[in-house]
């Protein structure tokens, strides 16, 4: 993997802390920022996978709507519930659609 020079602004106190951390750990700013960003992205990806698993459990009726809502928020939970209802009626809806002229 190559590297790309990027330009962005950071709050002063973060730069100070990062520089102290860099000194203590014998790393440079780039390594500190790269590690922090990697950790952040890993966490986010884990969260996505976690939420996906929650949706799977809800679709399998192993998780109630209220629990799903507590994790993913009302609007996304409602999106999942509405989608599940459409899929549960999938055969009947497809029959009706297939009969259209």
């Amino acid at each position, binding site marked *: 993997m190559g590297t790309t020079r990027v330009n962005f602004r950071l709050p002063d106190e973060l730069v100070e802390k990062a520089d102290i951390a860099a000194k203590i750990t014998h790393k440079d700013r780039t390594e500190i920022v790269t590690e922090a960003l990697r950790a952040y992205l890993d966490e986010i990806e884990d969260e*996505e*996978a976690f*939420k*996906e698993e929650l*949706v*799977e459990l809800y*679709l399998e009726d192993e998780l109630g709507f209220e629990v799903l809502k507590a994790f*993913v928020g009302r*609007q*996304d939970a*409602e*999106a*999942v*519930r*509405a*989608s*599940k209802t*459409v*899929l549960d009626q*999938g*055969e009947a*809806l*497809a*029959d*009706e*659609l*297939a009969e*259209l*002229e």
Partner: protein
Amino acid sequence: MIVADTSALISLATAEVDELVFAEFEVETTRTVIRELEDTAEYDDPHGRAAQRVLDHRAQFTVHDVAGGGFQSSRIDRGEASCATLAHQLEPAFLLTDDLRALPELQNVTAAQVALSPIVLRALVKRGALENGEARERLEQIAAARDWLGAPIYRRATRLFEE
């Protein structure tokens, strides 16, 4: 008659069944959706290419000018709102969307049955226009391109094609 929004048309083109759907059904959409497709087609990615594919088949479906976006909300965008308005005017049997986040609100504002692209694939199989196994594979393609909310839902939809 079917009214289809941007997300549904893009999904059907991703599954390469858009032409088949236009041949089998009377598909209607709005000028706003066409504009959204044109914007999406600017991107050189799977969504952009799918949007272009729909635009290339524009002669095979009907585009309507509908005024206003009375149904717009945080979840229903301009394209979907225009389709909801069109559905009020045309009273189609189905309103197609693949925007799961807009689905609950769309169901509330339209008298049409709101359906997702897997239902269309299943209907094509029932009509004998598409092989079951092929429909399943194409649905898996759509599922792979979805986010955490859509991926499990579209994966589950493959059960509609279990024999």
